[in-house]
Each structure stands twice: as structure tokens, then as C-alpha cells.
């Protein structure tokens, strides 16, 4: 295994398990002090959708045999209510009830990190294999291949955003886990797992529904690779030059045949997805039986997400806009903003269809930018997915600028909020300014990473032509 030896030196230096366990311990320590930090009331951390405080409220309403959705407090899934609800009232030995829920978040974060690592490992393996099959492995002797999976997992575990949202008493860690699970399932070829992750994450927060495209590409074409016509090209050239080496040629032919879309797995995926969907819906029907059924659930969860009913400030830009807009334009702009996400799906899917994992990152970043109730947990997810492509994005521009921007905004935004809400010397515009700044940095991140990825593909094509 050649890839093992090249990445081995890095891997030893990194000490993944040491740092992963350290991060879990760090989280546990912070969890103990979470009451003092009072992160659960921060608008950046917990949104109306993800807040566990609201979930506890919904659970109480349900215990009193009222609809959990009455009073516009809870807007999450009824299944989460049944699973996490009992945890919000249970106390262990005088410790606060938040502790148990935070433990769930810690476990979810850890699982996500492991899955990201596994995805990254297979991505690196695919990367090396592709370079070899294109005959570029001799050119790339100079630069080592970085074990991006390990780094991405560590970035996920040690990202302040992840840590804050993990101990901030909300469900975004769990939502992220299902998103990562579907990506891992698709990249490892575990179709039922991919379908399960996709269905549950879409059920929990609606936006991951767009991930169906990358998942289908992943299942159909396989992992991220250079553009497929390059394989065809190099296959021909390689066939002429190295015709003596039959074994290698055969393997290359295998590769070439693999670039065909395998409909079979996609059909299985959709079958599984429908199985899981019906399963989830039946569970929802059972738990919502006495409170208005599925219609009520759809209205109060997805309707709440799409209609942007809660205009309390958050790090997104929509709350301010819809607080200002006249009521008779409201529906029009709702459509405009949501279609914005949908508009980007198709062009991106066409341009990046050979790199489905990266496509998933782009979708997640775009949707976390245009989401109705974004939180830092979403950023945590796409930032660590970005690190998965550290080998491909080596030439990315503005990295330092973006880093400074993210650090600056994430410090400035709470200060502006403090100035507005607690000190009274600022106003909503102060806080919204940081939200706009944050959105701009996200846009720059997406634009630069996509263009860096396309440049990388161009570079490969040039190298192939040389070879």
C-alpha cells in the first residue's frame, strides 16, 4: 500500500487519537461549566429550530397532552422530541439536566469526526489511485499527500464553532452527524446508510434534501476524481505507450469502465430512501396522532422554516430583511430567497459532477448562507468538509484573508449584539452589519474554493497533455 507509506509520516506526527480524545475531554470540561457560559441563549448558537430549551418546552407540552407545537415554541421533529425529550428532564445526581443532552452532543460530534475521517481516508486513496491511473504519480513525488481525513476530523473536533455549538445545548451536532453519515455511506458504498442519513437529516432540518444530488453522483460515479474524459484520454495514450504492460492496461480499462454511471446502485438508494422515508413518516404519524397529524407537523416544522416566521436576530441575513419588507411583498421575496438556493443547484451539479463530495461541501456552504435560521454549527460542518480537499485546494487564494475574516467576525458579532441588546448604545444595524460581513466571507470562501478546484482540474489536464 503505497498511500499508507506516503501519508504515514504525517499520520504519526499528527497523533489523531491523542488529539481526538483530548478534544472530547475538553468538551466534557466545558460541559460542566456550560451553565456559567450560558451559551444556549446566544443567537449564534441556538436557533428556534435547534434549541434544546424549546425542545424541553415542547416535551412538557406533550406530557400535558397538548400539541408540542402549540404556542410556536417548538419547531423540530416529533421524533427528536421522543428521543431527546426524556433526557431534558432527567437529572443525574444533582447535576443539571443540560449535562445529559450535552453528552449526546459530544458523542454525536465524535461520531461525525470518525465518519469524516473515514471519508477523508477513502478520498485520499481515490486521489492517489486517480493520479496513478492518469500516470501523474511520478510527477507528484515532490509534494506529499496530506492525510486530509485526519486533519478534517481534527478540525471538526477542535473548531471553536463546533465546540461552542456542542456545549450550547442544541441539536445541530445531531443534525450534522446525520449529514456526515449520509456522505460517508455514499462514499463507502453503504447504500442503506447513505439513504438513512439523507432521509433523517432532511427530516430534521430540511436543507440537506439538496444533498440527494451529490449522494447520487457518489453512488453512480464513485468518489471524487479528475474529469472523466481525462481518463479516456490517458487510457488511449497509455494504451499506445505502454501496451506491453497488459496487466496495468487491464486495470486502467477497469477504471475507465467504472466511470460509467451505475444506475443500479442509484435505484437501490432510492428504494432504501423510500423505505426510510415511509418509516420516518409512520413514526411521525404515530407520535402526532392526537395533535393534528402529519399536516400539522409539516406546517409547524417545514412551514416554519420556509415562511421565516421567527424574526429574532441570528447570524443570517433574512431576519433583518423580512423585518423590513412590506407585508404584501413578503411572499414574493420568500420565493426569491428560496429559489436562490435552488438556482445554484443545477449549474453546480453540471460543473462539479466529477467531484460529488466537493459538491456536497458547496451545497452545504450555500445553504448555510441562505438558510432561514443559520447557526455556527452549520459553518462548523462545511469548514471541516472543506479541509477534506486540502490536497486539491493547495493553491487556494485568500486563505489568510478568509481566516482573519472568520476570526474577526466571530468575535465582533457577539460584541455588536451586546452593544445593541445590553448596552443600548448600538442598534440592530450594528449587528446586521456583522451578519452581512459574515455572509460576504462565506461567499468569498465558496467562490474561491470552487475556482481553486476548477484550477486544480485544469492543472491536471495540462499535466496529462504533457505526459
Amino acid at each position, binding site marked *: 500500500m503505497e498511500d499508507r507509506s506516503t501519508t504515514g509520516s*504525517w499520520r504519526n*506526527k*499528527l*497523533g489523531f487519537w491523542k*488529539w481526538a480524545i483530548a478534544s472530547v475531554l475538553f468538551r466534557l470540561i466545558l460541559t460542566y461549566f456550560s451553565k456559567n*457560559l*450560558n451559551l444556549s441563549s*446566544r443567537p449564534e448558537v441556538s436557533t428556534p429550530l435547534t434549541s434544546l430549551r424549546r425542545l424541553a418546552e415542547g416535551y412538557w407540552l406533550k406530557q400535558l397532552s397538548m400539541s408540542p407545537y402549540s404556542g410556536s415554541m417548538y419547531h423540530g421533529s416529533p421524533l427528536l422530541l421522543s428521543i431527546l425529550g426524556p433526557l431534558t428532564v432527567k437529572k443525574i445526581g444533582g447535576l443539571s439536566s443540560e449535562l445529559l443532552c450535552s453528552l449526546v452532543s459530544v458523542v454525536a460530534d465524535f461520531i461525525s469526526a470518525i465518519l469524516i475521517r473515514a471519508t477523508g481516508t477513502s478520498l485520499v486513496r481515490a486521489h492517489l489511485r486517480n493520479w496513478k491511473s492518469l500516470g501523474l504519480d511520478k510527477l507528484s513525488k515532490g*509534494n*506529499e499527500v*496530506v492525510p486530509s481525513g485526519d486533519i478534517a476530523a*481534527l478540525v471538526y473536533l477542535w473548531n471553536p464553532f463546533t465546540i461552542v455549538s456542542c456545549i450550547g445545548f442544541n441539536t445541530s451536532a445531531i443534525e450534522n452527524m446525520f449529514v456526515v453519515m449520509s456522505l460517508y455511506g455514499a462514499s463507502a458504498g453503504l447504500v442503506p446508510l447513505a439513504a438513512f442519513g439523507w432521509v433523517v437529516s432532511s427530516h430534521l432540518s430540511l436543507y440537506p434534501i439538496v444533498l440527494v444530488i451529490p449522494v447520487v453522483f457518489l453512488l453512480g460515479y464513485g468518489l471524487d476524481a479528475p474529469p472523466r474524459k481525462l481518463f479516456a484520454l490517458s487510457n488511449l495514450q497509455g494504451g499506445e505507450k505502454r501496451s506491453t504492460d497488459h496487466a496495468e492496461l487491464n486495470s486502467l480499462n477497469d477504471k475507465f469502465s467504472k466511470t460509467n454511471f451505475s444506475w443500479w446502485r442509484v435505484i437501490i438508494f432510492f428504494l432504501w430512501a423510500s423505505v426510510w422515508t415511509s418509516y420516518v413518516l409512520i413514526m411521525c404519524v404515530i407520535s402526532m396522532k392526537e395533535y393534528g397529524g402529519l399536516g400539522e407537523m409539516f406546517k409547524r416544522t417545514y412551514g416554519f422554516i420556509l415562511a421565516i416566521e421567527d424574526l429574532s436576530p441570528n447570524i443570517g441575513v433574512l431576519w433583518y430583511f423580512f423585518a423590513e419588507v412590506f407585508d404584501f411583498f413578503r411572499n414574493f421575496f420568500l420565493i426569491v430567497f428560496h429559489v436562490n438556493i435552488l438556482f445554484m443547484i443545477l449549474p453546480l451539479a453540471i460543473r462539479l459532477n466529477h467531484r460529488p463530495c466537493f459538491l456536497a461541501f458547496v451545497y452545504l456552504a450555500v445553504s448555510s448562507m441562505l438558510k432561514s435560521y443559520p447557526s455556527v454549527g452549520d459553518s462548523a460542518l462545511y469548514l471541516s468538509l472543506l479541509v477534506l480537499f*486540502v490536497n486539491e*485546494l*493547495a*493553491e*487556494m*487564494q*485568500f*486563505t*489568510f*484573508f478568509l*481566516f*482573519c475574516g472568520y*476570526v*474577526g467576525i466571530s*468575535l*465582533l458579532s*457577539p*460584541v*455588536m*449584539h*451586546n*452593544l445593541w*441588546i*445590553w*448596552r*443600548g*448604545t448600538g442598534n440592530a444595524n450594528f449587528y446586521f452589519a456583522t451578519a452581512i460581513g459574515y455572509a460576504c466571507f462565506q461567499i468569498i470562501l465558496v467562490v474561491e474554493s470552487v475556482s481553486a478546484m476548477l*484550477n486544480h482540474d485544469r492543472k491536471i489536464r495540462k499535466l496529462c497533455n504533457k505526459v
Partner: protein
Amino acid sequence: MAEVSAVVKPKPRPIIRIGLFLISHSLFVSIVCCIAGVLALLLLPVLAKNTYISENALMPGSASAMLSSDDASDGHVFLNKIMSISSMSKNSGIEIPELIAKHITESGGEVNYHKFQPLSDSFHPLQFFVGPDAGIVQDNYSSTSYGVNTVGIVRAPRGDGKEAIIIVTPYNSVKPTTSEALSLGVAYSVFTLLSRVSWLAKDIIWVAADSRHGEHAAVAAWLRDYYTLSSGDLEHEVTSVKREGVSNGFRRAGTMAAALVIKVADSSTGFEKDGLKIYAEASNGQMPNLDLINIDNYLAVHGQGLQVRVEKIWSLLDSWWLYSLGELQELIGKVAKSLNPGWKFGIPASDYVEGCATLASSLYNQALGVPTGPHGAFRDYQVDAITLEFSPRFSSSQRVLFLLHVGRLVEGVIRSVNNLLEKFHQSFFLYLMTSPSRFVSVGIYMIAFALLIAPLPLAAAALFSDASKSKSPGESIPTSPAWNWLYAAKTVLIVHLWGAIVTIIPYLLHQSPDSSPLTSLSMWIASSAILLFFTRAASGSLPFSRASQLQTSEWTLLKAVTVATAFIGLCLMSVINYATAEIGALLLVPMCLMAVPLRADLKAKTMKAVVRGACNLLLVFVGFPPAAFLLSKVALAGFDRVRLDDFWNWTESLREWNSATYIYICMVHLPCWVLCIHILLHRR
């Protein structure tokens, strides 16, 4: 901060082209911006505007004052009674509150006593990010010395009881001085008048705050109890109805519209008129709405003929360089006026110097982040409040006249605030005063700051693009050029984490009492230095660590990251407390921009290099926080008055008042200073 985009792309976008142009001339632009920033700061007194009353509803002075000389003489009688109690040999501290309570009930107000204990200091470094604590009040009356605030309330005949105006008179209940008694007399005469008038639309609360444990502590304790609902509230309400007269239950009125703290200075003014000094700075440079100061100033000057002053730094008044600057700007103003009569800028040189001294004091007080009086406690609850310190012309005679003037002023201010329909919101919250009737608003003073820190991102971008261009090919950097700043960022992050630990050390030192300030200071410095050494040693074990490579690779990257973090820190601080950021930027910006390894300068042995090295050493010396503090003290107070442990006491007071300046010094300034030294000592 465009990086190397032009090298890769054939046609960069126009905005990137502008960025590249600025970056390629970053040295020139930096120098111009820095000088312009300092100049703009010095020009602020010239750019100051006259204050005006922005809220129409206030209508100051539109009604004639109702306070008669009878009320004033009532106040005088009250004053004499307090003085007679204070001259009694045995005084347990409850007689005066009883006397005040009796008089309040006689004039028709409601009374209650508020017992409190001063809180022990607590340190909340995160309060600027998170917001105030959720009101954790510990009832822990262990020791016997509590203070007793006497609170009187007049219910407004025309109001709905939802709003209130506060008058605060701090006094020492055990041994009140004559001036404290005078302030009580003023408050009493106004209070009796207000209990009779028919125009009152907001309740009046008179807090006679017991200043045995400090004025601020008393007011803060009362406010804390006013705003936190304790469980005993309801039962007190029931019992207080049964008993006649004074109740121990906590009485409340509505939300506070404004608060006035009335004090009388001990010393008389040297002027012909009675004086009024306005203090407005609350914690962390927060100011009350400018309208509140405006109506005070307007009524005092035009209504009662008082001499109004705000604080200024006296030693600046007779500095020759400031005066010559003032003359220069006056001359320029005259020349400009002769060219075009429409151009009016330039103020008389003496006004300029006075404005500068006031501005400097305003900046310093805001930068300290320590409130200048009991009014500071109100700002923590978003209530606009100021302290009015009157200084009588004569020390003993004509007190009734003094009471009449001051009482009418207070009445007029209350009447104006009474007219308010909403919270104060029309006028400015962010401003600096250059005289009682002139101010610099945020839009103008931000220019000076923005010019001063504009070179930082430019320098960072320039250094960054230099570093990525001049990378020697032989060096094997494991990741790509786009990510090689990560090593420098790691160093910077570690130093800033070290800064966070340094912030906490004095809190730990504080736990062990009876150590002299000097030993505490030296322990603080020594432990910080040891910790820095250890963190440097321990940082080698982190992943991504290439200590050997970092030393051989360019220091420019490290400087770029340092400059960028300094920029972020200063921007952040300018939002929390502008004055700190401005003063900090004056020290930090030149230091960060100049830093170049000394070895390179020594090797070069040119005149320019030697001068640069000397400048670096000087800046680093001045940039060390204790050195900067002591030097400024020497400059203002003279050499003989300065002691080394002043610095410890100063930081201690900042810490106790939860000042953002303390956090800034430890978590932004100090790490940047250490990083600059790191760059200076870099092995090239």
C-alpha cells in the same frame, strides 16, 4: 487584502487591482495614513460642533421655575437639622436616615429603607461578548456593617406609574460633611416642591444613598435590588400596608427615564459665579445621551447663571507645543478666511488648548473604563445618568440663595425630562466632549481611528504577498504556499492564549492577601515570563509544529499574522471602548509596523538600518504596558510623584471595575508586544 491573485490571473478584477496598487505602495500609504490619523486626532477640538437639544419634547426652560425661597429655606432648616445630628458625639448611622424618612413622609411621599452590603469584587472577562449575568444575588449578610439607603417616592398625579426620574444624593450616614448636607438640602427642597406640583407625569424617586461603603456601591446595590425581583417582594408588600409610615419592603416606581446625582464640592470655586461640574463617563467609556448633558448645560448657563465645566487635564493647559499648534491652526484658519470668507474653521488658540485638555481628559476617563461617579451604576441598566457637582461661591453664608439656584436648576431638568414621551434616543450616545457646549460625535472621531489603523491590513497583505513570492524553492514546505501561514498563525495563537492566562494571574494572586503591591507586580511579571517560556517550549509538541522550519522561514509571515491580529483586536476594542482603542492604536500601530529583525539591521550597517533598529527598540520599550503607564505619569505629574507600584494599583482598579481596558492590555496589547519582540530577536 488581495494576495497573489495578479500573478495567477491574467486580468484581475478592478477592486483587486486597486488593492494591489495600494499593497505595492504600502510603505508610503502607511506613513501617510498614520500621520493623517494623528493629525486628525489633534484636529478634533477644531472639528467639534456646538451642542444642541435634539429632542423637541424636552423644551428646557419653557416654564418658569416654581421653587420659591420658602422651599429653599425649608431645605436650609433640614440641612441644619442634619448638621446638628452629625455634630452629636454618638451616632450609630440610623439617625439621619430616620430624619430623612420623617421629612419625606411629612411632605407626602412614600419611604422605605434599603439595607445593603457592598458586593465583593468579581471579575467577568466575558461580559462584553455574553451580556450581563442572570442576576445571581447572594443574600449573605454576615458582617454587621451594612449601609442604609433611604428611598423616597413621589407618585405622579398625572402619570400611570410606569416611569420614574431618580435623584441621588450620596452622603455618609455616620459623619456627613457640610457639603453632603447641602446636597441633601437641595434634594429635599426639590422633593417637597415636587410632592405638591400638579404637572408631574413621572414618579420621582429620591435615593439618599449611604456612602459608607463608597458612593457607587450604594447606588449599585439599590439598582440591583430594584431590577431583580426577589421572592420576598410580595410578602413585604402585604406587611407594608399594615404598618404605618416607613416600610422595610422594597418600593418601586416604573422604569427609569433618567437619573441625576447631586453632589456639592467641598472646596469653593475661585470664580465669581457658583460652579457646576458635569461628570458623565460610566463604565467602559459609555456615555449618557448627550441631550441630558445639553439640558443641564442650557439651564445652568441660561437659567441660573452657573459656570459649567467638564473635567480637563490641567497640566496640558500650559504646554507650549499644544499652544503653538493652536496658533498654527488659528493662522491657517485666518488665511483660509481671507481667501474665501465662506471657509470658517480655525478657533482661537486658547480655546484650542482648552479643548485639547478637555478632550484628553474625556478620552482618558473613557479609556479607563472606570465610572467617574455613582451615575456609572445606572448606565449598566441602560439608564441615562449624570453627576452634577456644584461648587458654591461662599462656603457658609448665603446658603439659602445657593439652595434656591441649584434647586431651580434641578427642578428645571426634572421638568424637561418629565416632558419626555420616550426614552432618550434622539441625540448621541457615542461622543467626546471638548467643552460643556461642544462635542465630537462618533462619525468624526472614528475617522482619526480609521486612518490610524488603515495601514495594518495593508501591511499584512503586503508582507503576505512578499512572503509568498520570495519563497525559496529549496525549502520543502509540506503544505502548499496558500496554507504556509498556518505555522505563523499557530505561534500567534499560542501567544494570545498565553495572554489569556496572564489576564487571570492577578485574580489568583489576589486570593492571597497581605502582599504589597510591588511584590504582587513582580510576581505577576515573573510568573508571566516563566509561563511564556514554558508555552514556547511546550508548543513544540503540537501537531503542525515545525519549530526549526519556522525559525529559518521568513519572519514576514509571522509579522503579517501579528499585524492582522492587532488589527482585529483594535477593531474589536474600538467597538467596545473607542478611547482605549485610540490610545492603544497610537502605541501599537507604529510598534507593529516597524518591527524588523535586529540582526538584519546590524548586518546591513547602513544609517537607515541603524535608525530603524533604534526606533524599534524605543517603540518596544514604550510599548511595554508598565513603561507606557509610568512614562505618561511622569509626563503629566512630574518625576518625583511616580512610584513603581502605581501600575499594580492601577491595573487592580481596572480589574475590580471590570474594565475592558484591562482585558485589552492583557489579551491584545501584551501578546502583540511579545510577538514584536519575537520578530526583533528573530534569527534570520
